[in-house]
């Protein structure tokens, strides 16, 4: 795979709007990877927009949006079509975690956090990591619990830079090696700062 990350061509507002609506629908379906579905939509919609541009004057935003819906399908219907791919999530009991979603850091498979039986109310953090079993990876993975069920953060990231879903996932999470390296760098930085201060103090007062 070519790792080249090119800066995105300007994404038309109608495409962005469509992807945002699709993202909100996809996040509601347990067992899906929203990034994959959004990448599919982005690929088709940008190709379609290029064809529209070549054929003549690009349409107005609302007309373009209607054209997209007629060609690619209503966002809710498209999300529903992807739901046939959704893998089951272990549902032990009914949870309550409004706005929270859990996703595997490796494969990106996600689910509303409440659908896994979790309870998370009034938490102030933006995200946290938990260990959990991923049905797709068939392994214990670090899973990210993130408060973005009502946000369109994935679309914004995918529209701003031409990342593949895998690159997007890698950019969102730190690997263990990267975490250790950053901790070591932080310790070294603090030590360097302390030594610099000590030398400065000895030179001035010593």
């Amino acid at each position, binding site marked *: 795979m*070519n790792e080249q990350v090119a800066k995105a*061509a300007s994404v038309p507002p109608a495409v962005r709007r469509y992807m945002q609506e699709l993202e909100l629908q996809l996040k509601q379906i347990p067992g899906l990877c929203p990034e994959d579905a959004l990448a599919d939509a982005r690929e*088709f919609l940008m190709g379609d927009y290029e064809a529209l541009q070549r054929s003549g004057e690009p349409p107005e935003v609302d007309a373009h949006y209607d054209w997209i819906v007629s060609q690619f399908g209503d966002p809710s219907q498209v999300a529903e079509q992807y739901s046939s791919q959704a893998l089951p999530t272990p549902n032990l009991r009914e949870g309550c975690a409004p706005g929270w979603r859990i996703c595997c850091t490796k494969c990106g498979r996600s689910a509303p956090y409440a659908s896994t039986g979790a309870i998370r109310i009034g938490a102030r953090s933006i995200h946290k990591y938990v260990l959990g079993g991923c049905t797709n990876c068939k392994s214990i993975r670090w899973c990210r619990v993130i408060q973005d069920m009502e946000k369109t953060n994935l679309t914004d990231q995918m529209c701003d830079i*031409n990342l593949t879903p895998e690159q997007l996932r890698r950019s969102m999470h730190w690997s263990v090696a990267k975490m250790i390296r950053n901790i070591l760098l932080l310790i070294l930085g603090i030590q360097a700062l302390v030594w610099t201060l000590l030398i400065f103090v000895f030179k001035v007062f010593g």
Partner: protein
Amino acid sequence: MSDDGLPMNQGALYPVLRSLERNGLLTSEIEASSSGPPRRYYKPTSAGKAVFEEWIGIWMKTKNWLDGVLEQNHERTSSKGSKRSARGS
């Protein structure tokens, strides 16, 4: 129906491709594009090609059977029509 004759929305194709890939009938690779987002290209695997041949066989059988049924129906309606016109004259 879209302009190119596909009897469904384009959005329905992508989940099917993903599903075929998950079942080992297709492989895919992503290639960067200079003009837009990276594009995913699908290729059939050897198992995919075998299943494709099998599906073509099944489809042709179904098509031939349907053609036969429709032809019989057409013959019946046309013979009824000719009898009626004969009675009318």
